């Protein structure tokens, strides 16, 4: 790598300043605020603030509802990440084939990404609404006692479907671009070498797609941890009986609605470290299997 020097000592700092400012204002500052707040207990009216060290954290770890939120999050995120990646890959492989009407097909598949999370949530809520929903009616017709308003598992399935549906477009776009960058002659060479379609996919296409898949895995994990808030808020409000209360939803629930700013801050700090750790683990272990 060639090193290029700046004659002006100040210029490099000025050039990175905007980026740095954005990072500081929108990440480091709020993050450090959260860390600081997580050491405080404030009464509901904000009149008295007390520095309590790790008491907020202790309370959290003793709280069974926090553990519940953790389990919910793990179930929810695993399901959403796995489903949205899997389905998107399947759709992209289909779209990559020479099919009639591939253009409209691709366009339609990208649309859900333009839909706001809350709208997506409401959309699915309507369709699965026990007494009015089109799909709920079908399910009931098939003898399923469908009721996401009362049944926690049903509510979870509904949230997973809505969150997955929303994310598929994004994943699809990247997978399709990844597939299209694989030279056709490679697939042909594999076909001549005797590999059938399934084998070609797993031994040639998928390994070449692995950088894309890895990038999407990281992005999707961050997505399910944070950005699904809107969907859960619109579809279930974390209910019934906290069955769909994920960590990020609980942060909002306890802090904004419950007024427990210290506890909520402690939760966001834990959440932040969790995502950092997850990303680090992904980079450390999964990236090794990626062929660039």
């Amino acid at each position: 790598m060639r090193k290029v020097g700046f004659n002006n000592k100040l210029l490099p700092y000025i050039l990175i300043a905007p980026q740095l400012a954005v990072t500081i204002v929108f990440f480091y500052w709020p993050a450090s605020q959260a860390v600081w707040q997580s050491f405080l207990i404030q009464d509901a009216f904000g009149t008295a603030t007390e520095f309590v060290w790790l008491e907020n954290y202790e309370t959290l770890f003793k709280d069974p509802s926090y553990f519940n939120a953790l389990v919910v999050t793990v179930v929810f995120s695993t399901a959403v990440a796995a489903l949205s990646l899997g389905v998107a890959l399947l759709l992209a492989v289909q779209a990559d084939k020479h099919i009639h009407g591939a253009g409209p097909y691709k366009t339609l598949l990208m649309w859900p990404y333009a839909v706001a999370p809350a709208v997506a949530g409401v959309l699915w809520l309507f369709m699965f609404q026990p007494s009015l929903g089109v799909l709920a009616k079908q399910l009931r017709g098939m003898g399923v006692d469908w009721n996401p308003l009362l049944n926690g598992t049903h509510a979870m399935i509904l949230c997973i479907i809505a969150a997955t549906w929303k994310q598929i477009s994004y994943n699809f776009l990247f997978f399709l671009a990844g597939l299209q960058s694989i030279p056709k002659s490679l697939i042909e060479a594999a076909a001549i070498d005797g590999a059938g379609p399934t084998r070609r996919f797993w031994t040639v296409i998928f390994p070449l797609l692995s950088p894309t898949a890895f990038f999407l895995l990281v992005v999707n994990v961050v997505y399910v941890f944070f950005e699904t808030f809107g969907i859960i808020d619109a579809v279930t409000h974390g209910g019934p009986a906290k069955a769909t209360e994920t960590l990020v939803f609980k942060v909002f629930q306890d802090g904004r609605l419950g007024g427990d700013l210290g506890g909520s801050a402690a939760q966001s700090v834990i959440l932040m470290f969790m995502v950092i750790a997850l990303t680090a683990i992904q980079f450390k272990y999964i990236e090794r299997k990626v062929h660039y």
Partner: protein
Amino acid sequence: MAEVSLKQVKKSFGAAAVIHGIDLAIADGEFLVLVGPSGCGKSTLLRMVAGLEEATEGEISISGKVVTRLEPKDRDIAMVFQNYALYPHMSVYDNMAYGLRIRGLNKEEIDQRVKKAAESLQLAHLLDRKPRQLSGGQRQRVAMGRAIVRQPAVFLFDEPLSNLDAKLRVQMRIEIKRLQRSLGVTSIYVTHDQVEAMTLADRLVVMNAGKAEQIGTPMELYNHPATLFVAGFIGSPSMNFFPANAAGGTLELPGGQRWTLSRQVAAQGDVTMGIRPEHLTLAGANSPAGHAILPLYVELIEPLGAETLVHGRLEGGKAELTARVDGEAAPVKAGSTMRFAVDPRHLHLFDRTSGARLQ
């Protein structure tokens, strides 16, 4: 024994016909080259033999077995692609072993075959490398190796040298020919480069617009091109053409020169006359009798060392002409008029409208 035969093979994409019925019989161990300008259908034809493109009509058989509707893997062929199509995520070894593993060969057999092929292609020290760590020539060799280890009935080459620089191309060309000779495997080779085609081929198929213009050995095509297209395509620099008028035994050139032909020409009226640049020799005082003389106004000379290319116009006419003369010969100067002699045996005559050769 692996003969390949094509019977009235046609291909169309939708309404557009790109191959208009090709008949070919390739003998066991023969090196056949498909040559033609881009878009002539040569690659499509090769891909139909490979099974990557389905023939719209006709029949393709390999070793006596009809394979027209079979998958590529069931045709017992190996193919070398223009961009080599090496699997970028696999080592050189794995690239070569991939097809063998799919065929379910045992480990020792695979190892032995790969090592042997690597040895013969000077790749033995590169087996652990990834394709991106190799030079163009090495990648080309890996692609060859991948074809060889399979021990197929037929090798298919789709412009395998066109991504290499000129020097490497000549070197690899020789290597491919040597390899094909020693393995004795029937090969079909596609190229747009007529020099490559001439040097490699046992037989050549010159293709133009989806038709086989002529099939024959390189020398047959060079000496007796069946059409104007083949005449212009084979040979470098390409053949000089100019209009002429034939009447009985005489030819009238556009500059008003008249030639009396020693041999009988059936043609009458307007014809196209062709002379190869290398058949134009500087006319001296002792030019053999019976040689036709062409006065050429020299516009440009290109000295290449061993030989010199002389570009000019036929005196009294507009017809452009290129001559290829010995570099040591009497100095040629631009802006002068020189006399060139042609042995009438080297004269080619073509029908002006159909382009077919006239005897």
